[in-house]
């Protein structure tokens, strides 16, 4: 029966590896989120040192002036919002929410 034990060991090992990988993934997301939070805090506190992106944006704003900067910023926000909207629509089209709800409803209401 060693082969059976081996199979279960492999299943268990795969499970452990998958959980470990997911754990690493979760930690990475949290780490990146912390980075974004620290960047946001630095921007709000006026700390520019060590933030190349912020310095670049500040330089761009200095060169082009406020009118162009606000147009660029507005377009960026519009693009971001449209992207989110497109993703939501995509998810909505890919996941048959209505059929799932209908199936669940059918379990109780006949």
């Amino acid at each position, binding site marked *: 029966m060693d082969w059976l034990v081996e199979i279960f060991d492999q299943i268990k090992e795969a499970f452990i590896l998958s959980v470990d990988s997911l754990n690493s993934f979760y930690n990475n997301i949290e780490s*990146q989120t912390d980075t974004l939070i620290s960047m946001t805090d630095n921007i709000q506190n006026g700390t520019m040192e060590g933030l190349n992106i912020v310095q670049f944006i500040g330089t761009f704003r200095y060169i082009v002036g406020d009118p*162009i900067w606000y*147009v660029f910023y507005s377009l960026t926000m519009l693009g971001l919002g449209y992207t989110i909207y497109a993703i939501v629509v995509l998810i909505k089209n890919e996941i048959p929410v209505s059929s799932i709800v209908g199936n669940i409803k059918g379990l*109780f209401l006949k």
Partner: protein
Amino acid sequence: MIYTIKRNDKKIVSMMLILLIVFTSIVSSYEVANAEIVTISLVVGGLALIGLGGLLAYSSATNQDIDDFGPVGDIFSTVKDIQTNVWGLLKVETKYFYYKLFNGVESVEPGEFSDLDTSIKDEVISNVNYVNQEGYIDYSTQIKYEVPKIQSETVKEFTTETNGINFVQPYASGSYYDLTETSTGIEGIIAYREIYNGTDYGDFNTKRSYIDFGTKSDSFYKLNNVGFSITTKSYINDFYYKSYGDYYYEYNIEHTLVNSQSEKYKVIFNFILRDDSADFIRNDIDYAYGSMKILQLVGSEYVELSTNGDSSTWDDDFRNNLGVTANIPSFDASNVFDYIDPLFIGVTSTNPSVCPDIKAPSIPLEPLLDTDIDSNDVGLYSDDIVTGLETVEDTFPVSVDNDLGGIVVEAPDTNVGEPDTGIDTIDYTGVLNDIANNTTSIEEQLQQLNQGTEIDLNNYNIPDLFKLLILILIALLKFFVTFVALVIAFRGIPPDSSLLPDETIQVLEWFKNTSLPSFNMSMSQIISYLVAILLVFRVARLLKRHIVGVAENTHRRSLKKTKSKK
């Protein structure tokens, strides 16, 4: 604003919620159940609603406790207990997800769960402990015994905001801390004895242990049961929870030790009390002083205990209510061992009801440093403790009657009458050496746990996978929200010229500052406005073309569908 509390208010709301749920269930079941059964249920339910409504109205009008209404009151209490327990667990879980989602502080108020049954409370505690760990695995379950590192040189007396740290407990023994005041708050290790008698979690007179940071009335940091456990939170009334139940603090690992006398100790590592938390508490107390009444339950009614505005009166009343009888007024940093003796050598009282405030004798013990550790020294604890994986009950504490051949000193004086501690001599040498011997190993363990390395993977369970998937979803959502917040924050980035050479800055400044007489604007402003207008027009044209294209495609598809149907 004066805030008063009536017990029946909560009960009426709770009962109405239950009735609403029952009524909704009956109505919704109409589709699937027999119509006659539903009709009978509706009639019975309606009569019950009318009866309970009248009962509640009578109770509310006469301000009489509904629990006193005989069998109906008993049924009501049973239903209410079930509802309270379920609702309490839901609140814990909700706050847990809130904590993970927004990385906020723990703000579960122990008073919210004062009515829970003991078994449910244990469940809540386990959940809360789980919440407080980093990641999704409760690492604390892997550490069965820990000894905090003793570093007497790091202990400082707090004199800026507070007048020392006081462990205010009816039995003031068994407390230890190693805290430092940093630029951001107070950090360190806290170990204290958890006090309660028996299993009655509801009577605050039998269990009170809290840590009082400071003695100044305007900076009265009171952390009730710092271990974030809800069991020892004293109950006076809801106001007490509101004013003193909110506190912000952080810690990494909490562990409960149980000695042979079934006395619980809690050890908290990496405790952090942030300054903003102190401000929050202070502001909250200021608010309480000015606008809220202190209520006390007398019989079945709450009565006003004292007037507002006088902080000293409030403090006195508060202390009297808690029945605080022992208070270590200040901390002497020169002798850290004064505060560790009962905790780590297992000194116990033969009569818990008169448990004295036992202090170590003022013998000239040298502070124990890492360099003083003798690795060959065998202390009171077995080697199994060093691994940190043995059960507490097997190894902790040891009897102080063991003869270790070390320095034997006289028993300390007590400050509560003349209690019989049953202990004549106390040997500190072996204990302290053993604590020091264990320190390195435990430190390594903690580092490993904090770094997330060398964790025994076999400890994963199937539910961990689902928890992890939920946490990942929450983390992704949080990442997305954070990213949006960052983009929004970009709007406030000021112009920055630090990356440009001086010559370029001079030219740009000339363009920005030189005003053209005819336009009363600078050349830079004119160019910027013109380009911005052109950009807006260009984007508008692109958008228009895109929208028209989408509309035409949609129209073509609809025409195709119409033709194919024909």
